[in-house]
């Protein structure tokens, strides 16, 4: 067994040191009735690398990977090109196989990288400070809502209709048990409308409101100005939480922090982290400095060592579960360290110049694709303003269309029918994401296949 270094001779010698005659004696505290008599049912004996790799490769081949198809899926997870060096760097054993940096003298690599990550995230989202990551965007969003509750001591959160439905679903799950009240609405598939439910949100803010949660760009791809909403929330003593599921957009679009958001959370997967069928991803969490002691999650900070040399440590741990237990700001322990490193390394390679170019490429590709697809008979473009993702209203329900396209080897978008099965008014919606990985040829393939499918 290749992962187990002890030999039988080692085991015997060690048992002699311990003073036990067999390993079974070491399990003496486990009642006999609880011990498995035989081997694990149905599990084969140990297997070679070759045979395990074959088994897994066979399963992998049953999936249509994004690189093998014209690919236009988004809605919270985006396909971008990741420089080869990023994956090489995160596979260095000193990063991959280290633990949470509890012993800072021998974890400066992780700590400095996290400090750089925090700075990159804070600047990108337009906030004073950011933490060392959360699990993903959806869980970061709920954590932001609970943080707003602690800051304002109020329990009503107003969720924008444009917030990712899975994020809403998670908030509903949690609110059912925590007693928070949620004001929720469904998006509308109306073309030419302002593109968001600002009026509803502003009307709903009252003296019990802890926060307004708004996603930008939103689930339909709309980009909106949050400044007015921020001002109205602040007038009533509520916080504005902004959610960004496509951080590449921030190379082109004004940041939520600049528009007045108090807490900005996001899904960082787009930068440095692959699609991975939904995880692991990396949650981004940033806020105004005055709220930092109410923040969840780990924070790396600057200090000095006994010789006065600059160094980094985990700090403000008195917010966290391992110190404060039931009084902690969150129960989060393990976060997304390695994905945060991937995000940071990719961002370091891009730099501001690269990020802005990448964002411009995405936007230009999406504009061209939206114009091409909106020319198809019966197809309407819902969005006025958008970044790299937009919504089409088809003349028919979009779910069967997506399935038919997939049968032709085209991953043509996300149907709103799948995301909102309970909302017939959204059934004709198709959300199409266009990144730098989608070629003009891919767009043409999609356009022709979609036209054929709609004519059928």
């Amino acid at each position, binding site marked *: 067994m290749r992962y187990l270094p002890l030999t039988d001779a080692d085991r015997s010698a060690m048992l002699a040191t311990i003073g036990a005659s067999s390993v079974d004696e070491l399990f003496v505290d486990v009642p006999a*009735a609880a011990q498995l008599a035989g081997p694990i049912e149905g599990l084969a004996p140990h297997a070679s690398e070759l045979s395990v790799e074959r088994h897994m490769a066979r399963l992998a081949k049953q999936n249509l990977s994004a690189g093998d198809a014209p690919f236009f*899926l988004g809605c919270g997870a985006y396909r971008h090109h990741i420089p080869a060096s990023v994956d090489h760097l995160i596979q260095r054993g000193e990063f991959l196989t280290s633990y949470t940096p509890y012993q800072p003298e021998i974890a400066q690599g992780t700590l400095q990288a996290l400090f750089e990550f925090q700075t990159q995230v804070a600047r990108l989202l337009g906030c004073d400070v950011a933490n060392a990551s959360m699990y993903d965007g959806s869980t970061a969003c709920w954590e932001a809502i609970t943080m707003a509750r602690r800051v304002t001591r109020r329990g009503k959160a107003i969720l924008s209709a444009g917030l990712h439905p899975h994020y809403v679903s998670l908030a509903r799950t949690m609110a059912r048990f925590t007693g928070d009240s949620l004001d929720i609405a469904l998006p509308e598939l109306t073309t030419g409308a302002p593109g968001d439910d600002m009026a509803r949100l502003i009307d709903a803010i009252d003296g019990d409101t802890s926060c307004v949660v708004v996603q930008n760009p939103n689930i339909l791809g709309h980009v909106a100005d949050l400044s007015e909403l921020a001002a109205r929330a602040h007038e009533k003593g509520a916080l504005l939480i902004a959610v960004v599921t496509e951080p590449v957009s921030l190379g082109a679009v004004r940041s939520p922090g600049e528009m007045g958001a108090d807490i900005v959370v996001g899904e960082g997967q787009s930068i440095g982290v692959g699609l991975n069928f939904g995880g692991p991803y990396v949650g981004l969490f940033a806020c105004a400095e005055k709220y930092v002691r109410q923040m969840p999650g780990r924070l790396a900070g600057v200090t000095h060592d006994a010789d006065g040399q*600059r160094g980094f440590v985990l700090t403000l741990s008195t917010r966290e579960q391992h110190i404060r237990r039931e009084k902690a700001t969150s*129960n989060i322990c393990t976060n997304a360290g390695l994905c945060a490193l991937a995000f940071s390394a990719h961002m370091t390679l891009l730099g501001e110049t690269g990020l802005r170019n990448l964002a411009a490429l995405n936007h230009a590709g999406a504009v061209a694709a939206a114009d091409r697809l909106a020319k198809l008979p019966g197809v309407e473009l819902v969005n006025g303003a958008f970044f790299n993702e937009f919504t089409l209203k088809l003349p028919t329900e979009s779910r069967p269309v997506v399935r038919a396209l997939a049968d032709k080897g085209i991953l043509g978008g996300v149907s709103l029918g799948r995301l909102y099965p309970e909302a017939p008014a959204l059934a004709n919606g198709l959300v199409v994401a266009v990144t730098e990985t989608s070629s003009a040829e891919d767009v043409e393939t999609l356009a022709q296949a979609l036209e054929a499918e709609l004519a059928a």
Partner: protein
Amino acid sequence: MSMNSEGRVTRPENTASSSAPPTFTGNRALMLEEKLIFEQDDYARTGVDLPEPPKVASRLGGLERNRPIGLPGLPEPEAVRHYTRLSRQNYAIDLGLFPLGSCTMKHNPRLNEKVARMPGFADIHPLAPVDTVQGALAVIHELAGWLKTLTGMAAVAMAPKAGAHGELCGLLAIRAAQEARGDARSVILVPESAHGTNPATAAFCNYRVENIPATAEGRVDLDALKARLGPDVAGVMITNPNTCGLFERDMKAISDAVHAAGGLVYCDGANFNAIVGRVRPGDLGIDAMHINLHKTFSTPHGGGGPGSGPVVFSAALAPFAPLPFVDRQGDRYVLVEEETAGDHHGSSFGRMAAFHGQMGMFTRALSYILSHGADGLRQVAEDAVLNANYVLRSLEDVLDAPFAASGPCMHEALFSDAGLAAGFTTLDIAKGLIDEGFHPMTMYFPLVVHGAMLIEPTETEGKATLDQFIGALRSVAERARAGDPALKAAPALAPRRRLDETAAARKPVLVWKEAALTEAAE
């Protein structure tokens, strides 16, 4: 061609002094100091070549970002060097024994890394049509099956993103189950030796937390627990094996008592490595337990994540498990989400994360389970327990082992700071171990032991490594008992000496600002 082009063989010329003089760079040969990315660039460069974006009329609704963001870019040679230099300031399991108790720092097989990166797993979208991702659903279903088999439980939720998220999953199911029978309860009982995540999780879903006392031998006090049970107690959270490294012998009796009082039993499965393949938690009356795939099933810790925390459920809690989950219908796998849950899973407490869990960890964990097989997994538990007992018995003469007299330990050995010279602490021992080339053990946890040192070697360490570690810890412990003042200055050989955490917390500098940094370093 060799560097030594003249063919001369060199030899040390002067061995008189062994202390190195300061260097111009601050570097120490292979140990290279590395500036922050923000200190080495003018923010205009980039390490990524992209085509010139075509000129299009912006459709951003007038929301163009028009101010500088402040993100430095490094060309690839400098970026690779930056992170490579940083990496070398980290200790890692690839470098040596990493004996953090309750963290299970075992070897991370590289086959698993290779498998996770197969495009069929790494490059598929969570919302791809289910007919295009049948292989991915098969992985989830197959792994779920083995987790149920290994634990003897009825169902498993694959969605939780880490151990603490799994705890949340378990407690939400308990809440949902009790509310469904009109029996809302408000208190969760947690032993003092529990991980901090246990009480934090209970509070996160609005329970009140009360402590259960421990016996003198480091186990849950069954009588005290029974005395506290009542109609307000929703359940207990027990870690088994516990954080003192001991198996809770009374686990079945605890479960029976909790069930009799209408409560449910959550088990923190952080220490499952000690019993995998030998004991099934389902046989102990447990209703829910998370499994840290990044502990028992060898997925890498990555400097603090990502983790993965699937939760197994008893038949009583299975109907309340979260969405989504994978089901098999004939020869096809389906994803049960909100839309289809109503048909046969209407009691689910709902969704707790955006997509389907940590797929990248599932592929690794499944590869690990298949690699070890039935015989290997059982051997994992046995070797992990053997290694821990070897450490315990090899050091109990020089370090106080508060529970050693009561019998063998499981996967981790617990020591206290009793017997150290006045003024010497667990922290000093930890920092001394750093100079010896080892990562320290878990310090000051569990809280039930003064100056706790919790050592979990895991099964992936050989005897020679253990012997060297035992020798090093013995040496450091003897210095701490003798009051060697040099130990107070440890580590002397690490990239940094002891860091001032108090100063960091008093005036937090959490992002780069030139002035603030200068001040903090002064």
